[in-house]
Structures are given as C-alpha cells and as structure tokens.
C-alpha cells in the first residue's frame, strides 16, 4: 500500500460517504433540539422570575426607606421633567433589549445595509464616501457570512475592525447595537 493508495482511500471515503441519515431522523433530531432549547429558555426564565421576585421585594423595601429618608433630609426636586425623560428613555431601551439576548440579536436581526449607512453619514469629501463604501461592502459581507456560520465572536471582532478602519462612518460601539440601530419595535396599541 503506497501513498497513492492511501490518498485514494482518503478521497473515496471522504467524497463518497455512506448513506445519509433518513429525513425522518433529521426531523426527529431537529424537533428534539427545538424542544430542549425551549425547555432551557423556560427554565432560565423561571429562575430569572424567582430571582427578580426576591430582588424586587428587597429593592422596594430599600427604595421606600431611602425615599422616606430623602424627604426628611433633602429639599423637593426642582426639575421633574428631566427625571421623567430619563425614565422614558430607559424604558424604550429595555423594551428593545428584553425581546432578544445579545446572541439572538445577531442571529435574528438583519444588519443595516451599506446604502443605509452611507445615506445616514455625512462625508466631507467624495473620496471619503467611496473609500467607506468599499470598506463597508467587504466588511458587511464577511460579517454576514460569519453570522450565517454561527461564528458570532469572529463577527464581533470583524465589526470592531471595521469600526476602527471606517471612523468617518461613526458606527455604534458594538455589533449588537449596530444590528439594533435598524430595529423598530412593534407599535403598541
């Protein structure tokens, strides 16, 4: 048996694999995977609910205590509107982020297109615009490929590289924020 035989054998076995699993088995395996994933999500959720329950009770007690203390010690707040704005903004943010985990954001949401980014960016010179366009086309193709393969960390690294190289694009500081920048939460009735 010489090297040629071995190479041939390698090629026969790798190029001509045995029969594939039945499509019924495919379905059964993928279905089981979905069910287990759902169970895991539910169990994480119920754990979180329990934790939030305990933490919430502790928070309420603490808040009541400090509010009472503040009323005694501090004068009344002069700018209530500013405080309300802050609450509204944080609520908006939590509505968007509660819907998806960071990994899900990358797996579920599609990224803004090159046209979207170029349209929303102001360029001082035309050569900046064309250089940024080239950079974005290449980087977004890489990032989308990596996301399709499930290589989320590599996609994040590639995004940070793009962000550094294309500073005029003023991209958000993370890939998740970049994906969310196009996300429009459903309007509540």
């Amino acid at each position, binding site marked *: *048996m010489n090297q040629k035989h071995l190479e041939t054998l390698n090629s026969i076995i790798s190029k001509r694999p045995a029969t594939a699993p039945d499509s019924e088995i495919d379905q059964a395996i993928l279905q089981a995977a979905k069910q287990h994933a759902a169970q895991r999500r539910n169990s994480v959720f119920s754990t979180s609910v329990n934790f939030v329950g305990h933490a919430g009770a502790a928070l309420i007690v603490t808040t009541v205590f400090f509010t009472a203390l503040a009323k005694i010690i501090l004068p009344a707040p002069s700018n209530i509107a500013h405080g309300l704005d802050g609450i509204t903004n944080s609520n908006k943010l939590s509505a968007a982020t509660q819907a998806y985990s960071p990994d899900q954001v990358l*797996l579920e949401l599609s990224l803004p297109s090159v046209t979207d980014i170029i349209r929303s960016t102001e360029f001082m010179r035309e050569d900046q615009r064309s250089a940024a366009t080239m950079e974005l086309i290449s980087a977004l193709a890489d990032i989308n490929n990596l996301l399709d393969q499930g290589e989320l960390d590599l996609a994040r690294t590639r995004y940070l590289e793009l962000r550094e190289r294309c500073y005029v694009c003023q991209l958000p500081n993370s890939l998740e924020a970049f994906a969310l920048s196009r996300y429009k939460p459903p309007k509540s009735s």
Partner: protein
Amino acid sequence: MRLYASGSTRAFEVLYSRHKQKLHSFIRHQCGDDSLAQELTQDTWMAVIKQAVNYSAKAKFTTWLYRIAYNRLVDHWRKFGPSANVVTEQLQEPFADNEPCSDHIEYHQILEQLEELPREQLTALLLSIAGFSRNDIANITNSKPETVKSRLRYARNQLKAQIEV
C-alpha cells in the same frame, strides 16, 4: 454549541448540517446494517442535545461528538457482539462507470482488506481519514496517543502487505 446550550435552535441546525453526513458515515462503516446505523446516529445526536448544557469548550466539538458516537458503538458491541464492518458494501456501489477498471479492482482489494482489520485499527484509520489528529483519536477512543500511533501503523502495514502479495 455554547449558543445552542443558551437556547439558540439555529446554532444547532448549523452544527447538525455541518456534521451529520460524516458522523453517519463513521458509524455506518462499522455497523452491520443501515437501520442500526440510523438508530445509533439518532442516539448520538439525542445525547448531544441532552448533554449540551454540560458541554465545556475544553475539547473541540467534533472530538466530543465522535467520542459520544464511539461510546454508542462500543455499548452496542458489548451488548450484541461485534457487527461486521461494511466498508466494501458501502463504498463499492458508488464507483462511477467511467473510472478505469484496473483502479476499480485495486480499490476493491484495499476495501476488502479494510474489512479484515481488527476493530480498533479500523476505527483509528477511519478517524484519521476523517481528519482527526492522533491526540484527538486517543481522546475519542479513550486510549493513549502511543497506542493510536501503533494501531495506525499496524493498520497501514497490514493493508500494504496484503496488497503487495
């Protein structure tokens, strides 16, 4: 795998489509019949699904996957005795008509000899062909790298000797 463990079904679909064919081939080449291979393949993936939360990224995913598959095969052999290797049956059929006849006969001889190899040597050889390193094979088959090295050497020498006769 970590993504799937955290609840992403899509991550599992990617993993499954990437590895299902090769894993099934690995099992099929060491199983007596196709339905048994299907069953063991399904068992392997079900174990992957159930053990996903315990998966640690210390070893490569493929090493972990094939180790589970190999353990399923060993369990089966222990329970029902060794099944015939079916390398020839599986690989002989798809030969294309346009391949030279002499090559066909030569390859057929090699494949027949593969079937005659002791089980551990065949497993090591199939894993080596699938691209695993000596250390990976040792990890999958729960043996020492030196043992794997000698199994591979014996397997190749035996094939070489048979073909030169």
